[in-house]
C-alpha cells in the first residue's frame, strides 16, 4: 500500500444499519503518525466510524456503506484488497480489554500465526517476538515469569496493555482504539496514555473517548461528531479553546452531553 501524509481518508462516507443511518457524508483526513481523538455524545457514530476502517462492521450483516475509505492511499472496498491484509495494517483495541482466553504467550503470537505460514516461526523467533512486544508496552518485567498464564487472569490494566502488545508483532500502521480506558482505573488509564504517547509517531492512533480531559491530554487533533455528522476537525487545543461551530462549543464547554 502506498503512503501519503494521511493514514486514513474518507470521502462522503455514509453508513446504514438496516434503515437507520448512522453516518452521514463523513469526509475526514487522519494525519500520519499522530494521535487523533474522536469525541461526541453517545450514539453519534464515533465507534461506527472507527469500525469502518478495518471493516469489522461488516460482520453484522445488515450494514450498508456508501462513499470511499482510503487507508494509506488505497480504497479498502476495492476488489483487490485483502481483508486479512487490511486487518494486519489496521489494528484495533476495544472498549473492554479482550485478551483471548489462551496464554499470554499465545495471545501475542495469535495474530502473527494467522498471517504467517504454518509453523514458520521457530521457538527462538517466537520468544524474541513475545519479549519485544511485551517490552514495548512495559509488561515484560511483570509478565516474563507468567507467559504461560491465561491472559484473562491478568489485571485489567495488564490485559489492555496486552491487547495493544498483541498488535505490535503484526507491525500495523494504524491502531484504532475504542474507549480503551473506559474499564480502567486512573492508574491504568495513565499507563495506557503514556504507552500511546511513546508509540505515537511509529503508529497512527485514532481513539474514541468520552473523557474530554483524556482527549485534550493525549490527542494532537480532535474530531467532534454529532448525530452521525462530522461537525468539526481541528487541532485539539484549537478545538477546545476556540471551537468554530456552536455545537462543538456547547459540547466542549459541557453545556451539552
Amino acid at each position, binding site marked *: 500500500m502506498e503512503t501519503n501524509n494521511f493514514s486514513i481518508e474518507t470521502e462522503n462516507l455514509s453508513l446504514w444499519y438496516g434503515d437507520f443511518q448512522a453516518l452521514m457524508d463523513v469526509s475526514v483526513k487522519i494525519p500520519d503518525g499522530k494521535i487523533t481523538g474522536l469525541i461526541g455524545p453517545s450514539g453519534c457514530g464515533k465507534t461506527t466510524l472507527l469500525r469502518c476502517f*478495518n471493516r*469489522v462492521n461488516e*460482520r453484522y*450483516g*445488515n450494514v450498508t456503506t456508501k462513499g470511499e475509505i482510503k487507508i494509506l492511499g488505497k480504497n479498502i472496498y476495492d476488489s483487490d484488497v485483502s*481483508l*486479512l491484509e487490511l*486487518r*494486519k495494517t489496521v*489494528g*484495533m483495541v*476495544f472498549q*473492554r480489554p*479482550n*485478551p*483471548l*482466553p*489462551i496464554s499470554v504467550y499465545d495471545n501475542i503470537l*495469535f*495474530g502473527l500465526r*494467522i*498471517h504467517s505460514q504454518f509453523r514458520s516461526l521457530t521457538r527462538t523467533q517466537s520468544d524474541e517476538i513475545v519479549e519485544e512486544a511485551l517490552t514495548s508496552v512495559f509488561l515484560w518485567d511483570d509478565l516474563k515469569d507468567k507467559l504461560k498464564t491465561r491472559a484473562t487472569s491478568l489485571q485489567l490494566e495488564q490485559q489492555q496493555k496486552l*491487547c495493544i502488545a*498483541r*498488535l505490535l508483532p*503484526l507491525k500495523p500502521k494504524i491502531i484504532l482504539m475504542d474507549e480503551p480506558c473506559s474499564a480502567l482505573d486512573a492508574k491504568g488509564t495513565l499507563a495506557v496514555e503514556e504507552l500511546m504517547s511513546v508509540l505515537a509517531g511509529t503508529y497512527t492512533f485514532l481513539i474514541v473517548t468520552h473523557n474530554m480531559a483524556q482527549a485534550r491530554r493525549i490527542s494532537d487533533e480532535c474530531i467532534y461528531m454529532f448525530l452521525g455528522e462530522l461537525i468539526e476537525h481541528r487541532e485539539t487545543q484549537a478545538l477546545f479553546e476556540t471551537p468554530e461551530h456552536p455545537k462543538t462549543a456547547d459540547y466542549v464547554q459541557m453545556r451539552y452531553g
Partner: protein
Amino acid sequence: MNRSNLLYNVIAIVILALVLFMFWNFAASTSYVEGKITSGGVVIDTLSTIYGYLYGMIPICCVLILFSLAVAFYLEEWLSHRSWQYRIIERIIAIFACIPSLVYGLFCAYFIVVKSQQISYLTLTIAVFFIVVPVTIRTTQQVIQKVDLSVREAAYALGAKRMRVIADHVIPNTFPMILTGIFTTISRVLAIAALFIVICGWKITESNSKHSFDIPNNAIVLLSSALLFSVISCLFEKKKSL
C-alpha cells in the same frame, strides 16, 4: 443473500440430505435386538439388550449428535439471525424441543406394539432423532451464544477467519458445556428407553409366545446407565470454562 451464502446453503442442504438418506437406508435395513434362541423361543435378556444398545444406539446417537452439533454451529456461526432460514429452523427446533421425550417414547412404543410387533432400527431412529436432535441443537446453540462477543471481535480484528475462530476459541471454550448437553441428552434417551422396554417388552412377551423380555433387569440396567450419564454430565458441567 449474496451468491457465496447461497452456495454455502445449497452445499449444506445437499450434504445434510445425503447423510440423512444414507442413515435412513441403514436404519431401515437393520434389525435391532437379537434375542437368544432357546427351546422356549427367543428370549431377550439383559445381555441381549445391552448388546442391542451398543450395536444399535451408539451409531444412532453418534450420527445424530454430530448432526445436531453441525446444525447448531451452522445456525450460530454461519446463518444470519435475521435471515428467514434461521427463523424457520429455529421455530421448528423450538416446537420439537418443547415436546416431552415421553411422547416420542410412546410414539415409538405404539409403532412397535400395534404396528410391527418387533423392535426395528427405523422406529428407534425416528424416536431417538426427535429426542436427541432438537435438545442437543438447543443446548449447543445456547452454549455457543455464551462465548463472549469480545473474544470473537478480538480474533476477527486480528484477521482470523471464521473457521479459525471456531476451531481456536469457540470449540475449546464451549467443549465441556457441549459435552454436558450431550451426556444429559443420552441420559434422557436411556431413561425413555427403560420405559419403552417396560411397555413394549411386557406387551410383546404377552402377545408373542416366541419372544420374551427380562423386563425388570433390562429396565434397571437402562435406568442405572441413565443415572451414570447424568453424573458424568454433572462432572463436565463443573469443568466448564466459560
